[in-house]
């Protein structure tokens, strides 16, 4: 659905996107993950036709972004990083305007506005000036304007940035509810965003592709081990040494008061670990699964490593 081939973008001397190649399948939610200044916004701006690439090619919904920009613009709904809103318009009027410039036929405009107002939960603010609505609602208006011409591809640049936790959850639910035939690509620098919303992920750093796969296979490929983090009343290096003797445990390391215990996937020495903690009187306070895999992978990427 979205295909990028050897994409390069230079701003003068600065190379923002370096030889990026990835492919996103139809009907899924994909995350474009990377730290700040990784080239996420630039990549999205190229896909939407806002910026031209220096070199390489990109196709969206079967149309070449550079050869058939108008077809691509009709196929894409786009929420830029800075939500494009005219403060002096009401929500309803603004959406009507966007419907016009997105070439929604005149007869269908009113229905299109009704539909996105409902989908984005904007009924209560429809008649209010955009200037006067809350940030969360502004973000929803941004998503609504991206949806108005019922695009096949939805590109959302940092859709939850600057929102409070409750609003973040709301927007995530909204995005999930849009899944269907539509392909959605959202950018973020927060890993949790990807693991909670997306089916697949494209990870980039400093303009380079680091990984591109479905979330499931990516997790499976990178983590050969599972683990738990134990919080103990009497933790430290001595406790870690004790845990290393439990059969099945591959690695145990003290992390301040806590101890991280890891084992090869398939085994499960958790019974032995707890029994030991109780018998030795270590004062077990808390035990929780320790995420390995994609989190480690992302950290490694951000700190400058590569995959494969």
């Amino acid at each position, binding site marked *: 659905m979205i295909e990028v081939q050897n994409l390069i973008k230079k701003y003068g001397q600065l190379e923002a996107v370096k030889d990026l190649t990835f492919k996103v399948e139809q009907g899924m939610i994909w995350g474009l993950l990377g730290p700040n200044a990784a080239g996420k916004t630039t990549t999205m701006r190229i896909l939407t036709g*806002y910026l031209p690439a220096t070199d390489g090619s990109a196709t969206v919904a079967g149309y070449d972004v550079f050869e058939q920009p*108008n077809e691509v613009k009709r196929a894409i709904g786009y929420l830029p990083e800075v939500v494009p809103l005219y403060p002096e318009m009401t929500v309803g009027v603004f959406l009507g305007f966007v419907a016009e410039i*997105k070439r929604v036929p005149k007869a269908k405009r009113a229905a299109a506005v009704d539909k996105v107002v409902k989908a984005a939960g904007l009924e209560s603010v429809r008649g209010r000036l955009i200037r006067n609505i809350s940030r969360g609602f502004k973000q929803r208006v941004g998503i609504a304007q991206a949806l108005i011409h019922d695009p096949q591809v939805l590109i959302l640049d940092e859709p939850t940035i600057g929102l409070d936790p409750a609003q973040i959850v709301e927007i995530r639910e909204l995005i999930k509810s849009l899944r269907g035939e539509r392909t959605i690509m959202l950018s973020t620098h927060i890993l949790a965003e990807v693991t909670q919303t997306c089916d697949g992920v494209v990870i980039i750093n400093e303009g380079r592709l680091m990984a591109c796969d479905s979330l499931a296979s990516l997790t499976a490929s990178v983590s050969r081990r599972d683990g738990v983090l134990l919080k103990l009343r009497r933790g430290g290096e001595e406790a870690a040494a004790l845990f290393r003797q439990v059969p099945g445990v591959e690695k145990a390391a003290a992390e301040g008061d806590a101890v991280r215990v890891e084992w090869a996937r398939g085994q499960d020495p958790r019974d032995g670990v707890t029994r030991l903690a109780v018998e030795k009187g270590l004062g077990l306070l808390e035990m929780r699964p320790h995420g390995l895999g994609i989190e480690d992978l992302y950290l490694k990427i951000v700190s400058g490593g590569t995959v494969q």
Partner: protein
Amino acid sequence: MSNIWSIAKRELRAYFSSPIAYVIVAVFLLLVGFFFYSLVWWFNSQAMQMAQNPYYAQQVNINQMVFSPLFHNMSIILLLMLPLLTMRLFAEEKKAGTEELLYTSPVSVVQIILGKYLASLLVLALMLVLTWILAAFVFAFGNPELAPLLNGYLGLFLMGAAFIAVGIFFSSLTENQIVAAILTFGALLLFWVLSWAASSASGLWKGTLEYLSFFQHFDDMTRGILDTKDLVYYLSFAFFGLFLTHAVIQSRRWR
């Protein structure tokens, strides 16, 4: 075409849902009304005196004595006010980030420029049409000629259209509205006073400067002369301004 109108409608809405359009139109009418009143006052006293002498009585001409100077006054007011009308057109979109919506929509840059241009032209037309009230008084109590009057209005409109094109160009250069307005003032004033430089120049240089000056072309039109040379001047000026705007926007996106 419908895209141009969509853009123009939104711009008009922006003008009229904020105080901008009302303030500009009101101040314009106030100033024009003041000048009109002074000119009619002066015309009355002159006409009284001239009526004493049968030779001068032939020369009393309300078109020449009231409207011609009034058009000159109006053109200066437009020069001062139109940059304030155009300064926001692109600068504001850039600052607010809404240009990203426009440029990622299936609307061409030409359509965006023409839509914004059309909206300002309509505000200009409204400003001029409202001053017809003054002309209506003159028609009610005197007998001016219609043709030179219309010609003068055509001149004002064309000149305003050229001013607006210059304003749009400078608005596309910056995201700061004040900067856009100041640059527009500077450029318009410069083209205005070129004729002063022309008066002390000679030969080809003189002709060129005279041709480039707003003043020279406008003078003809307030006297009731309709010359294709003047029409071509204003239209090409407007076209050039819009053309440069297009070039600026395209180059920004391709940088």
